[in-house]
């Protein structure tokens, strides 16, 4: 889960870079930048969940 999270973080970053390079209009570029940020947030959630220690059974 941790590795998947970090891969999503990287993917989100590259999505933003690709949007800047490839998309000509401001509207579509903004939409993809927001999408990239959303992917990063998803990745961050996965990384955070992977680091929460499991509670010991009582």
């Amino acid at each position: 889960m941790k590795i998947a999270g970090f891969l999503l973080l990287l993917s989100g970053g590259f999505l933003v870079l690709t949007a800047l390079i490839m998309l000509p209009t401001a509207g579509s570029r903004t939409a993809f930048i927001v999408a990239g940020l959303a992917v990063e947030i998803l990745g961050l959630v996965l990384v955070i969940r992977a680091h929460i220690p499991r509670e010991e059974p009582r």
Partner: protein
Amino acid sequence: LIFPILSAFSPLAQLLCIFCILLVPLALAGIALINTGLGRSRSAAHAMMSSLCVTAVAAIAYCICGFHWQGFPGQPAHIFAIGAKSWDWLGAGRFFLGGIPWNGSPASLAACFQLFSIGLVAIIPLGAGADRWKLSASCLSAVFLAGWIYPLFAHWVWGGGWLAQLGANFGLGHGFVDVGGSSTIQIVGGVTGLSVAWLLGPRRGKYSSSGMPAAIPGHNATFILFGCMLAFVGWLGLNSAGAILFAGVLPERIVLIAINTLLAASSAALITLIITQARFGKPDASLTANGWVGGLVASSAACAFIHPAEAVIVGIVAGALVTMSVQWLEFNLKVDDPTGAVSVHGIAGIWGVLAVGLFARFPVQLPGQFIAQLIGLTALLGFIFPLTYGLNALLNRFYPYRVATDGERQGMDLYELGADAYPEFVTHSDEYGQR
């Protein structure tokens, strides 16, 4: 640069810039005192010693190769072109601060500013790893932070890199704007702190088997609060010098920068005080101190371009965010961050960067500033965070960061330094015993 800037500063700008740069080490001293005060008494000397050693290591690493990678606008850089746009991604100066004209030029002042502030970046993670991070390991981590990670992002923002050029290349406002280092210094330090806290794991006895956190209060509130005052003076220098150097702000604007810095810190501290008073019945000194520093951190990015009333709003939001996120990290995410470094520097820094997009008024208003700020944050989350986590995880694998169990029981002072910070104190049996 937002204001037109000359290749050389006026004598007044040069003098003011030098004066402000000389204040920057006070920010470092303040954060070191806060980190020490928020840690345990049996690790106090170790905390201060770590701050000193990490600052020294970071300065040397930055001198050897950091400024080479970071550079300054107008200096050589690695640039590639895609779709008729140039992407400046890394500096290509000379090692050991070579090629800089030492005559008061903007590049020489920037090198001095960076050398003074690199210690601040490097001691932020120390707070997150307090009471359990080996001195040698923290110095090793600082080498990578000061030599590679920080210069990479600082080049993108302050060295004329692709984030700074978002305005010129893609019509996004003035490009990513951060005059005092909310992102370059604070968030980079904050995400490295989060990585270190995760890799080290919580202190012994911090969480019960059911996951409930135990309160481990700081040992010296006087250190913490005096550290806040020192940090404020340092921040005045940090924000003012950064604004002159990296945004071409005129010296007359330093008055506004100083007022905004004070107002943001004051409102953040007061809102934290009110929240803790309402929640716990009494104001919490350590959280209030965290709120104060959070306000300073959030003020850095936008301080030169916002109205004082907006600085108060920036501070109020920063204070509330710091208070909530400290508890959220501790209770929900089980991150043992003894000094609240992740919240204070990371979360408040993110808010500071966004505040530029929301409130900043530039001499020429251009559309797309908020998007430029968002892109800067995605670069931090998408590239810098995995990089700093990966490098620290790699180092931790070959040279374990965490001190042995005996070290935590005895305290870092005795175990790593062989002498206590307070040798006349009697060690309590409950502190020394098995937890």
